[in-house]
Every structure is written in structure tokens, then in C-alpha cells.
């Protein structure tokens, strides 16, 4: 018994000691974001570490000389490069491919100025999935970093305290006497971001669904989520044509969970929600022309949402709207809210006649420039791909090139828009103005002759002012709380607008959909939770957070690329989006002191020596066992 107790005690001490030893050896990073691997039908993109984690000696690279030193004189490789944004360019990263580099850590000192531009997307986003080949440089700062297969892992930190620790260790151990680095212990990083998938979407999906194994390992998942739709009136037989008002719901970035998409996406979502709410307030009567609002998901990944919508419309499978099925032929025009903001507004029109009343109204009211025959790389491309005669109009804050310097990057946040809910900016009023102008123009189409009442204008401005912080500052805001179930605790952070994989829910999509349902639905204050759910209505917290019953006409539809639902689809054909995301086990990074090569070899040598020595001793003892142990037995 006593023996058992001792053993338990010993084990407990041993476990505790092991924990402490581990903590003494490693400094774990928190609040990092990792670059991960994605595939399309033909290639792989992004980063992966080695299976057990990639290790390298820390080296800050601040200028050209540091790179040259790495290329010519470095002796203690492999290295982990620590970079700032101004060095985080395609040219520099490509040079690291040829040096002994095992990983790149990008950091941003939040107390310093942000870089003037950083966009990891293509100069022509969705270059290969538009309705024509893209030769324009829409995104002048686009570096295409997202569209590379990097041979090393990449991480991002912006926590100044963590960065100080890294820098401190680096300055103490690595910097001095650089030529003799390989003779001493050095500060090193270990990055773990091993990606299971490889090659391309086709092979990783096929491998994951192999039917020889009972439980095949999953290697990758199709990227996709849900679209959100709201028709102003129900679809009936009388509807001759439909005007679609669309915006994209997602953005992109290299790093997991850091997809703010403020200027590229949020402003359009907010404007679309405001326009829809405004039309709902105006109580537009729908006779032969209906208006459908759609927020499309996965648009940055080769138009997943819009291509699926168009596919469903074409196949006659689109039944997300109440009433009749909407057909592609019914859609007369598509109006897209592109990147929006303060300042000049541009109208990119295609197939729209100059005297089109909607176009002229928008042009005059918004004092906008009209660019005829112009189609930016946005969702309308999917409609034009199917029907090149469809009227499309893109309302955006840019002409031939984006004014957003951070398109689809992690810096595309509230700060980039110069927005903060605490200070007065023109952003809410600019967006509200677009929403109201567009709403009025649409109202005059459905209700010709009648003038919309002006009493709702201040309500819409207030709505926009309340909507912006929900997406730009924290999801824990009044409107999102009102559109959730009572008692829901929302994350106190900016929601990531990354589309994510089909099989997991996306908070931004669900909250936006619920909110559109609340803003454009009918509330029944007299119904309690039970009777509400019996009628299949939505039970939400409501503005006073006590619970309210809403009959929503807004609805979701699947935004999974047709490539994954068409049987035997040729993934290399390039017709539909084939993006998949790799599966991973963990993403993490830690720092430790790596002994010099000589010490490592010495440790190994001693280990082997001790093993051999003990083997020899045992062998000798065994051979002489009779002589050694015999006498004892005889005693």
C-alpha cells in the first residue's frame, strides 16, 4: 500500500515537474494567425509546415542588407524570418524560397503607421472566372501573395507584448557576432501548421472519399456557405420581371480568422441591408416587377455564391423565395453594390441604355460618373457569363482602379476606412445616402407616379450608424443581439468575413441573415415563444432583448459551387469555382532556445555512447552470470 502511495506521489511530482520543464523550455504564442492551404481544380495555394512543425533560428529582416546577409553569409540555418509589412512583398518572399528559410512571421507594430497599401489578392481579382478574360489592373496594389504555393509556413502577430519577447530573445542571443552564430545557442521558433491536403481539389476530395476505407481521412473541404435573399414582394404569376440588388458577403485574406473586409465588403453589406429596410418601410406594392435583394457568399473565391445562384436559376431549382420559383429569364437587370465609401461614386454599366430612368436617377442624385460597358470583377460577372445581354449596374467608389488600398487583406479594417463609432465621420451618411437614393429609384419603378414619404430617411441614417460598428468594431452590438435568440452571447470581436467550408456555419452569414429577417420581417408582439415556433416563425431577442416573434421573408440558399454538385464535373474545366480548404489539426507557434549544432551532435553522441556502453555491460554480466550470481545463491 505504502509502495502504491509512493508511486502515486512520485508520478504526481514527475508530472508537475515535466509541465514546469516544458514551460521553462518553450514560450507559447497566443493570438497568432496562420496562413493555411487552399486548392482549386488545378493547383495548391497557401502554406503548410512540416508534419512535426517547422523549426528555425529567428532572424529579423528589416532591409535589403539583411536579405543579402541571409543569402551569402548566414551559417546557422534554417532560419525563421520575422518581417514587417513593408518587407512583406512578393519579391522578398520569393528570395526566401532560395535561402535556407523554414518560415516567415509577419508582424505589425500597432503603435506605428500602417503601410500605405497591402493587398494579397490578384491585380485582377477572380481573373479566370469572369465572363471575359481580364486584362485590366483593377486592384493596382494586388500582389497575388494569396495565389502562391509557399514552401514554408507563415504566421502573423500584432500583439506588441509577444513581439517584444521575440525581439528581446533575438537581441540577447542571435544578433551579436553574427558570423559565429553556428557556435552557440540561438533563439528559435517552431511553427506548426501542417496541412493534410495536397495537389488539387480533385485529388484531395477523391482521396477523402475513398471507399476502400471504412472511415476515410478527410483531406479537404469545399469552400462555400450560404447566400441570403429577400424579395420585396412574394413571387407570383403576375411577376414579369425581377430586378436583383446584390452585394457580396465575404472577403479574403492570407491568415486564418483575420478577414475584416471593411472597405471591400462591409460597406456594401450595410448599404444593401439599409436599402432593403428602406424599401420595406416604404411598403412598396409589387405588381409586375419584383425586387430581390441577395447577399452572395464566397464571391472572392471565383464567385461561388453568384455562380450557384445563376446555376439554380437556370436549372429552375431556386426556391429560396416564398411563392413561385424564380427563373433566370425573369431577371431583367442586376444592380450590385460594390466597394463603397465616402467620396465620389461611379456607376459601371453594361447593356444599360443611357436614358434608363434608374441610371439617370442614380447618376443625378449621387452625382456619379457613369462608365459605360464597364464590368468590375464582382458578382455580376456570373450573370453576364450566363446571359451577356443582361443589364448590369455596379455602384462603387472606384472608377477603373480600386481606391481601396487594402483589398482582401487583413488591413482592410475600420482603421483603413478611418471609421470609429466614437468620432463623427461621413461614412454612415454617405452609405445612407446611397441606400436612400437607390431605394427611391427602385420604389419609383414598382410604384410609378407615387412619391415615397421622406419620414424614413432619418431612420435609415440611424440604422446605418448602428450597423457599421456591428461589422467593423464588435459583433456584440444591439442589432446583432436583437437578431439572435434571447440570451445569446455574441463574440466581442470583429467577425471574420472569410467564407469558410461548407460543412461549418459562419457567424457573419447567420447574423446577417437573421438581421435581414428582423429588419424586413413582420413582428407579432402578441405571440409567445411556443406559439411563435408552432407557426414556424423566428423567435429572436428583439430590440429590447426580451424576445419577439418575427415572420421573416428573408431566406438562405446554399452557396456551394455547382462544381461540387454536378456529377462527374471536370474540375479542370474552369467553368465553376473549385476552391477547397485543407484540413489541419492545429495551428500554433512557440519559441525556445535551440542549442548549437555542435552541442546537438555532442548530445546525440553521448546518448549513443551510453546506450552502447550499457549494452556492453549487460552483455559482459550475462556472460559471467554464473560467476557473479552463483556464489550468492550458494550462501
Amino acid at each position: 500500500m505504502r509502495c502504491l502511495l509512493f508511486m502515486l506521489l512520485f508520478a504526481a511530482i514527475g508530472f508537475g515537474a515535466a509541465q514546469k520543464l516544458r514551460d521553462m523550455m518553450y514560450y507559447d504564442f497566443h493570438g497568432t494567425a496562420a496562413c493555411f492551404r487552399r486548392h482549386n481544380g488545378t493547383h495548391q495555394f497557401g502554406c503548410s509546415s512540416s508534419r512535426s512543425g517547422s523549426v528555425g533560428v529567428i532572424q529579423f529582416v528589416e532591409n535589403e542588407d539583411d536579405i543579402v546577409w541571409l543569402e551569402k553569409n548566414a551559417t546557422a540555418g534554417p532560419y525563421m524570418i520575422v518581417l514587417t509589412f513593408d518587407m512583406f512583398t512578393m519579391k522578398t518572399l520569393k528570395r526566401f524560397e532560395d535561402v535556407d528559410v523554414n518560415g516567415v512571421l509577419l508582424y505589425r507594430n500597432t503603435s506605428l503607421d500602417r503601410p500605405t497599401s497591402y493587398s494579397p489578392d490578384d491585380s485582377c481579382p477572380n481573373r479566370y472566372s469572369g465572363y471575359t478574360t481580364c486584362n485590366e489592373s483593377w486592384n493596382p496594389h494586388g500582389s497575388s501573395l494569396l495565389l502562391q504555393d509557399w514552401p514554408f509556413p507563415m504566421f502573423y502577430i500584432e500583439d506588441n507584448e509577444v513581439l517584444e519577447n521575440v525581439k528581446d530573445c533575438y537581441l540577447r542571443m542571435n544578433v551579436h557576432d553574427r558570423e559565429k552564430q553556428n557556435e552557440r545557442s540561438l533563439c528559435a521558433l517552431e511553427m506548426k501548421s501542417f496541412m493534410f491536403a495536397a495537389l488539387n481539389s480533385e485529388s484531395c476530395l477523391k482521396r477523402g472519399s475513398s471507399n476502400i476505407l471504412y472511415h476515410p481521412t478527410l483531406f479537404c473541404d469545399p469552400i462555400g456557405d450560404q447566400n441570403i435573399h429577400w424579395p420585396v414582394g412574394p413571387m407570383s404569376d403576375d411577376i414579369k420581371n425581377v430586378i436583383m440588388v446584390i452585394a457580396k458577403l465575404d472577403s479574403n485574406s492570407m491568415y486564418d480568422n483575420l478577414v475584416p473586409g471593411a472597405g471591400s465588403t462591409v460597406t456594401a453589406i450595410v448599404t444593401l441591408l439599409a436599402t432593403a429596410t428602406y424599401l420595406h418601410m416604404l411598403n412598396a406594392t409589387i405588381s409586375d416587377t419584383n425586387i430581390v435583394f441577395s447577399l452572395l457568399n464566397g464571391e472572392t473565391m471565383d464567385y461561388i455564391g453568384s455562380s450557384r445562384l445563376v446555376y439554380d436559376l437556370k436549372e429552375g431549382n431556386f426556391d429560396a423565395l416564398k411563392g413561385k420559383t424564380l427563373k433566370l429569364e425573369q431577371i431583367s437587370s442586376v444592380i450590385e453594390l460594390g466597394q463603397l465609401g465616402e467620396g465620389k461614386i461611379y456607376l459601371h454599366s453594361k447593356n444599360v441604355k443611357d436614358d434608363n430612368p434608374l441610371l439617370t436617377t442614380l447618376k443625378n442624385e449621387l452625382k456619379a460618373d457613369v462608365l459605360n460597358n464597364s464590368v468590375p470583377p464582382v458578382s455580376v460577372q456570373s450573370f453576364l457569363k450566363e446571359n451577356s445581354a443582361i443589364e448590369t449596374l455596379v455602384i462603387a467608389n472606384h472608377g477603373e482602379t480600386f481606391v481601396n488600398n487594402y483589398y482582401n487583406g487583413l488591413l482592410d479594417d475600420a482603421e483603413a476606412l478611418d471609421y470609429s463609432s466614437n468620432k463623427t465621420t461621413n461614412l454612415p451618411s454617405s452609405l445612407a445616402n446611397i441606400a436612400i437614393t437607390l431605394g427611391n429609384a427602385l420604389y419609383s419603378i414598382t410604384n410609378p407616379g407615387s412619391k415615397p414619404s421622406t419620414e424614413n430617411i432619418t431612420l435609415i441614417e440611424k440604422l446605418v450608424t448602428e450597423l457599421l460598428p456591428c461589422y467593423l468594431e464588435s459583433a456584440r452590438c444591439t442589432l446583432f443581439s436583437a437578431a439572435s435568440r434571447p440570451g445569446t452571447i455574441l463574440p466581442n470581436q470583429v467577425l471574420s468575413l472569410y467564407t469558410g467550408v461548407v460543412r461549418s456555419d459562419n457567424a457573419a452569414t447567420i447574423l446577417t441573415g437573421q438581421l435581414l429577417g428582423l429588419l424586413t420581417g413582420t413582428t407579432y408582439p402578441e405571440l409567445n415563444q411556443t406559439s411563435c415556433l408552432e407557426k414556424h416563425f423566428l423567435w429572436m431577442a428583439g430590440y429590447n432583448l426580451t424576445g419577439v416573434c418575427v415572420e421573416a421573408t428573408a431566406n438562405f440558399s446554399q452557396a456551394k459551387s455547382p462544381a461540387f454538385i454536378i456529377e462527374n464535373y471536370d474540375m479542370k474545366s474552369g467553368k465553376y469555382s473549385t476552391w477547397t480548404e485543407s484540413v489541419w489539426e492545429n495551428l500554433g507557434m512557440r519559441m525556445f532556445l535551440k542549442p548549437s549544432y555542435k552541442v546537438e551532435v555532442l548530445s546525440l553522441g553521448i546518448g549513443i555512447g551510453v546506450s552502447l556502453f550499457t549494452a556492453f555491460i549487460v552483455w559482459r554480466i550475462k556472460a559471467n552470470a554464473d560467476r557473479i550470481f552463483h556464489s550468492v545463491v550458494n550462501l
Partner: protein
Amino acid sequence: MDLTKLPNERKLYLCKWYFYAGFALLPFLWAVNAIWFFKQAFIVPAYEEQKLIKKYVIFSGIGAILSASLYISWIVVFQTQRTHWGEFADSITYLYPAGSP
């Protein structure tokens, strides 16, 4: 089992049995047979059954070497060519490597 303690006809019986069993796609049995009976076939003083045992040991050895070289060549070819064969290689793979093509 200590072969030296077995009667000679029993040794022959075992050796023969192992040799034939090897044809059931069990080349490892041939290898075992060849090594296990090597002493009995070539080193110990001659006895009546030794001639047959010798024959079985030699053929078992040849079989073992042939199948091993086939096996090793297949492994080498498959491991080096798997990525080039693309879809066909995937269709004959049982466990896919994670994170590499």
C-alpha cells in the same frame, strides 16, 4: 522448436510442408524454410532424407529471393512513380500520405 531433436522423417515432412505452403502467396515461408533448414540441409552429417530436404531448401531460397526482389522493385517503382501516375496511382493506394502529392 529444436530441429536437432526431431526424427529425420519429421524434418522432411516439415520442410516439404513449408515449401508447398509458400505457393499460397506466402513467400516469407520460403525464406523461413531456407534459413531454418539450412543447417539440416548442408551442414549436419548426411542422412537419408537430407537429399530431398536440400532440394526443398534450395527451391525455397530461390523462391524467397525472387519474390523479395519482385516485392522490392514494386515498392521502389510505386514510391518513385506514384505522383506521376496521378489518378491511377490514387486508385490503387490504400493509405494516402497527408500533405504531399
